[in-house]
């Protein structure tokens, strides 16, 4: 089966300008050589801490920020070299859901205007058909059609997130990048929205790239999970396998750091020293070696290659000298 999305050695560097002549003095390597593929109807979870490049990766895939180098193939079409017209057509196949339900909707547009806009931009249907489609979409995300003429400020965070999801669904995309879609929501509403996303995937066969800092949420929704650190994926495996048998020391530490709502399970916690280094001058060798509890001599100078360590048939990749 050919994958729906294939990302090859994707890089996104941001130039840092300085000095009198505003010359480029450094590069922030936000995404630094990421490769993976995602099959139709599957969910790939991406976890990592702030600044690891996971949000930039999502935007670089959607060409909202044009990548510095590498390839992104959606349904066999290479997006990074596409002209504006071709890209416009491809936007029907890929959409995004955002983190902040208060910033993601135009404050001065009604619910109907917001959800209808993608249909108008791509010239889909007659005005009457669009109206019906908006009603249908509101039903899909669990809202009454009576809300169509209301403005975003009249809704709670969870409801706004539903409206944003309806907008993303309007074009029947094959891929949705969900960038921290539940992080800003309260616990009881979070579960409602997670269930909605899971249902959409089951019923509509949409592939999700689910980006989050919250490991428990990612595990809940994902088929496969990739762990990012300093712009790279350091480990990627089927969700259950990653959580049961993490191979990368960073994954282990990340998993052990999650506070567990169970007072009887006092954690055997791996507390990492120090902070994430700046992506402006990442350390040589393995990006994690400055904080790694299992650091070896080679880690300081040699970048670990990605190796396959899967035992159960499914692919389990890790970039660590311990497994090289």
């Amino acid at each position: 089966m050919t994958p729906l999305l294939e990302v090859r050695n994707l890089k996104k560097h941001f130039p840092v300008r300085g000095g009198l002549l505003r010359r480029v003095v450094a590069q922030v390597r936000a995404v630094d050589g990421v490769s993976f593929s995602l099959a139709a109807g599957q969910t790939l979870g991406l976890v990592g801490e702030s600044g690891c490049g996971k949000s930039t990766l999502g935007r670089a895939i959607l060409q909202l920020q044009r990548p510095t180098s590498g390839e992104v193939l959606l349904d066999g079409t290479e997006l990074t070299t596409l002209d504006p017209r071709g890209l416009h057509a491809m936007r029907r196949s890929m959409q995004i859901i955002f983190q902040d339900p208060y910033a993601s909707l135009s404050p001065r547009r009604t619910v109907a205007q917001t959800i209808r806009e993608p249909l108008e931009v791509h010239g889909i249907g007659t005005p009457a058909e669009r109206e019906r489609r908006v009603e249908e979409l509101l039903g899909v995300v669990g809202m009454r059609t009576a809300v169509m003429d209301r403005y975003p400020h009249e809704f709670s965070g969870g409801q706004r997130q539903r409206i944003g999801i309806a907008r993303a669904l309007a074009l029947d995309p094959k891929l949705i990048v969900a960038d921290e879609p539940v992080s800003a929501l309260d616990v009881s509403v979070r579960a409602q929205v997670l269930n909605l996303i899971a249902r959409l995937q089951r019923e509509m066969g949409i592939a999700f790239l689910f980006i989050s800092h919250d490991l428990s949420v990612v595990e809940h929704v994902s088929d496969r999970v990739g762990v990012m650190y300093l712009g790279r994926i350091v480990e990627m495996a089927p969700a259950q396998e990653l959580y049961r048998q993490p191979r990368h020391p960073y994954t282990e530490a990340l998993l052990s750091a999650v506070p567990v709502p169970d007072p009887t399970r006092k954690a055997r916690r791996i507390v990492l020293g120090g902070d994430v280094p700046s992506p402006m001058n990442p350390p040589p060798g393995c990006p994690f070696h400055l904080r790694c509890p299992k650091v070896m001599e080679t880690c300081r100078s040699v970048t670990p290659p990605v190796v396959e360590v899967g035992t159960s048939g499914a692919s389990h990749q890790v970039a660590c000298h311990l497994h090289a």
Partner: protein
Amino acid sequence: MTETTTRRQSLWSKAAWKLRRDRFGMLGLAVVAAYFLAAVGVWLGLWATGWGDVAGGKWEAPSAAHWFGTNLIGQDIFQRSIYSISTAFEIGLVVAVLSTLLGAVLGAVAGFFSGRATDELVVWLMGVLDSIPFYLLVAAIAFALEGNPWSMHVAMISTFWITTARLVRGEVIKLKGLEFVEAAHAIGVPEYTIIFRHILPNTFHILLVQSTITFVAAIKSEVILSFLGLGVKDGMSWGLMISESTFEVLAGFFNNFLAASVLMFGLVMAFSIFSDALQDALDPRQVS
């Protein structure tokens, strides 16, 4: 699933609520409204129709016939000063609306394409226009347009848009990083549609406040420009009245000067107070 909406108030209704509680601001608005009614009456020909007629003798004292007395050639000062209200509103409205529009469009386009050539061009233009002394620019435009009655308006608009554009540009740079703009990009909405449909409506509070400030600035500038002979060509204005009154003041006759300056002071003051109140009410940092 419940869909009961929360009672979260919009920025506008909150602002209106705050504005209504601001007594000075509301007083200012009432005074401005009274002036505006006076101007409407002039436009409809209800009063001050005899502003150009010679209706009495030279420098008559205030009386029942001539409330503020008469000027050097026997014209009624009261009618002239009331008529000038309509001139002030004409100039204020035209300049405020057009310079706000210009500032909004150029500022939004510059902000949206910040760092690119379009932005550099607009920023350069603002810098150049800012560096020319205002009255020199007005004189140059007046000279270039040779007696055109709109030269004063053109001169004011060509400088007043700059402040609005700067503010809008800054706000747009902030707004274009927000997720709803990213969402529009992701949908494939064309760039100029994003600017005018999604971004500019969210700078409306700035435009509203800026247009009131520009209105006041235009009225004040008119007085100085007319006094210098660069302003109103036909018709009557407070600036022309003050210009006329220079000889009269030297001769000890103050009615013309007082009528024009007190009325102007009242309007400018009331409008400024209202403008401040509006700004306070719309300030998102205070509205939260």
